[in-house]
């Protein structure tokens, strides 16, 4: 009897645990369009780091393909766009999505705008921030999904030892490391994971994952 109760209450935990997301956004437009393939185009860059769009581009294929979509090869797509004279994200985002989708034979186009990609330094602390606007548009030009995600990282100062001087030194070293090589990539990967997979606004599974999840 007790076991049954325990089991039931655990089931509730399990069920709510998996579905504990805050109110889901309306995904009916996405589900109606039911894209099989996604074209990821180079991002608009509002940060000061000129390399940010390329670095971001390298992180988008894996989470989307693992979500079950055919993702057009991002570097090949970039190459094709450059052949057409499109080098900058701004230029590409201004093209009608229908035209881009047709050029590649894509069901949907993913546009990302980089809003933050920076590291801010105080004397003994550093904060690395990335923030992206994501927008997916179907081949007929209707927007089917959008999300915003910001991720921040401040090195934790391990207060080992406890002496104020030791803590100060360890904080200074952490800040120096973050300053020398701010590590944007893990933050960017986390942001992608949040919006595509884990967050309340995660996209539905594509055709190549349907068999494993409902």
């Amino acid at each position, binding site marked *: 009897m007790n076991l049954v109760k325990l089991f039931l209450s655990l089931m509730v935990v*399990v069920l709510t645990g998996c579905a504990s997301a805050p109110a889901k956004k309306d995904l009916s437009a996405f589900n109606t369009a039911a894209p099989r393939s996604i074209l990821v185009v180079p991002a608009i860059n509002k940060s000061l780091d000129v390399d940010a769009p390329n670095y971001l581009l*390298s992180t988008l294929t894996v989470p989307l393909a693992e979500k079950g979509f055919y993702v057009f*090869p991002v570097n090949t797509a970039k190459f094709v766009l450059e052949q057409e004279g499109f080098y900058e994200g701004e230029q590409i985002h201004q093209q009608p999505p229908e035209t881009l989708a047709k050029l590649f034979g894509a069901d949907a186009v993913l546009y990302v705008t980089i809003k933050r990609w920076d590291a801010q330094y105080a004397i003994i602390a550093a904060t690395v921030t990335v923030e992206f606007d994501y927008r997916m548009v179907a081949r007929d030009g209707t927007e089917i999904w959008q999300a915003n995600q910001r991720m921040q990282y401040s090195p934790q100062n391990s207060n080992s030892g406890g002496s104020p001087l030791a803590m100060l030194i360890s904080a200074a070293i952490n800040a120096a490391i973050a300053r020398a090589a701010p590590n944007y990539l893990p933050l960017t990967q986390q942001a992608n994971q949040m919006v595509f997979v884990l967050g309340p606004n995660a996209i539905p599974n594509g055709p190549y*994952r349907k068999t494993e999840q409902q």
Partner: protein
Amino acid sequence: MKNNHMNLVLLLVCGLFLTGCANRGAIYQWGGYDAMLYQSYKNPEKTVEFRQGLELHIAKMEQSKLKVAPGLYAELGTLYLQTGDSTKAVAMYTRERDAWPESKGLMDTLINNVGKRTRTNNEVKS
């Protein structure tokens, strides 16, 4: 004894819970594709390693009869094209098209363009 049983049930349910929520096992093996692409953007000299890395990974996948992840054949094809090897590029674009029907439109266009370009080059030469 009863306690032991409870613990067992608890463990089992926890196990279910964890696998249930983590039902996101990878579909594909990527062979470091994203890291290699990142490195080649960071330092264009690494493009050679990117190409060799993809060659190795694809060979490994084909040897073990595993499906090559979407886009990898085509990315390798483009790297060949950029070094002037149109024959190998077309071979890779063809394999991408055969593996992924969604890529057919783009791959056909690429294959046709490469064909046209090499033909024009030959005409110029002769």
